[in-house]
């Protein structure tokens, strides 16, 4: 099973999210109220490390472990509406549930069965976007 390693990576990721407390509704409230540096520190440091890594990968044409070139698919920056409107709608959901998609699954794993409700909502939202995709401004 060549994909088994992704389960291991996911476990590590879920563990870090939990220990960083970024899965907490309270921490998200603290962030949107600008009352602590914690969330900004976590996200900011992640971006800095990600940025350095991506620049190294691009500059040195780093290959993956199979020897294949690494492809980074750029998002189309001309689709202004989708990012601003879709992003704002996502922000509503982030502040309401206090969780983005990764934390939803980590919270469920931590024993909070009530998170099945927002997860069902997120699946429904994804499905409804699929139905409406061509009627929305992008």
């Amino acid at each position, binding site marked *: 099973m060549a994909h088994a390693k992704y389960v291991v990576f996911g476990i590590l990721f879920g563990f870090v999210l939990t220990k*960083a407390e970024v899965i907490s509704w309270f921490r998200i409230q603290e962030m949107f109220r600008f009352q602590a540096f914690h969330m900004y520190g976590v996200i900011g440091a992640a971006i800095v490390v990600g940025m350095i890594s991506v620049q190294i990968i691009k500059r040195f044409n780093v290959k993956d472990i199979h020897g294949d070139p690494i492809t980074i698919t750029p998002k189309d920056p001309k689709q202004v509406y989708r990012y601003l409107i*879709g992003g704002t709608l996502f922000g509503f959901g982030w502040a309401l549930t206090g969780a*983005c998609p990764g934390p939803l699954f980590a919270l469920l794993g931590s024993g909070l069965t009530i998170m099945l409700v927002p997860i069902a909502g997120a699946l429904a939202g994804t499905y409804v976007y699929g139905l409406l995709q061509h009627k929305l401004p992008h």
Partner: protein
Amino acid sequence: MFDWLYQPWPWYVAGPVIGLFVPLLFIAGNKQFGISSSLRHACASFAPKSIPLFNYDWKREGLWNLLFVSGVFIGGFLGGWVFANPEPIALSAATVQDLAALGIQDFEGFLPDDIFAWGNLLTWQGLLIMLGGGFLVGFGARYAGGCTSGHAITGLSDLQAASLMAVIGFFVGGLIVTHLAYPFIL
């Protein structure tokens, strides 16, 4: 010696570790770090092929992502249950004061039980926050083409203007709910 498994990690430890998932997934198999795609793959596993968004080989493109997310669930179990931090989260006093003024009484664990409980599901506030909030997370992430991981971390790491717009949207939305909507909802 194993205290670090139970205790919360500071931002300068957790943040860089989270950022390392970007190169880790690229190098391990040319995979682009992003979580909300898993919701799309899950829908694609049962949706009719007449919906273009879900008309692709979800096992080929998405199996790794669904496995990653199943790992996140296990990671949450380990970090939030097996090695759960026994102390309440060290929130800023100002946040505790603001939330208490809105009527929040439970500051234990990751979520306030005042809102997130099965018993609240049939109140309009419970439905709006839990089901409506979840719906907006799924709908908004797909509309914007990514979530916190795909846009804020991977996209900004690649200096993409599209991701900057999306992240500005995330914050505008979050600030509106926190400062304008919550005083009426809670």
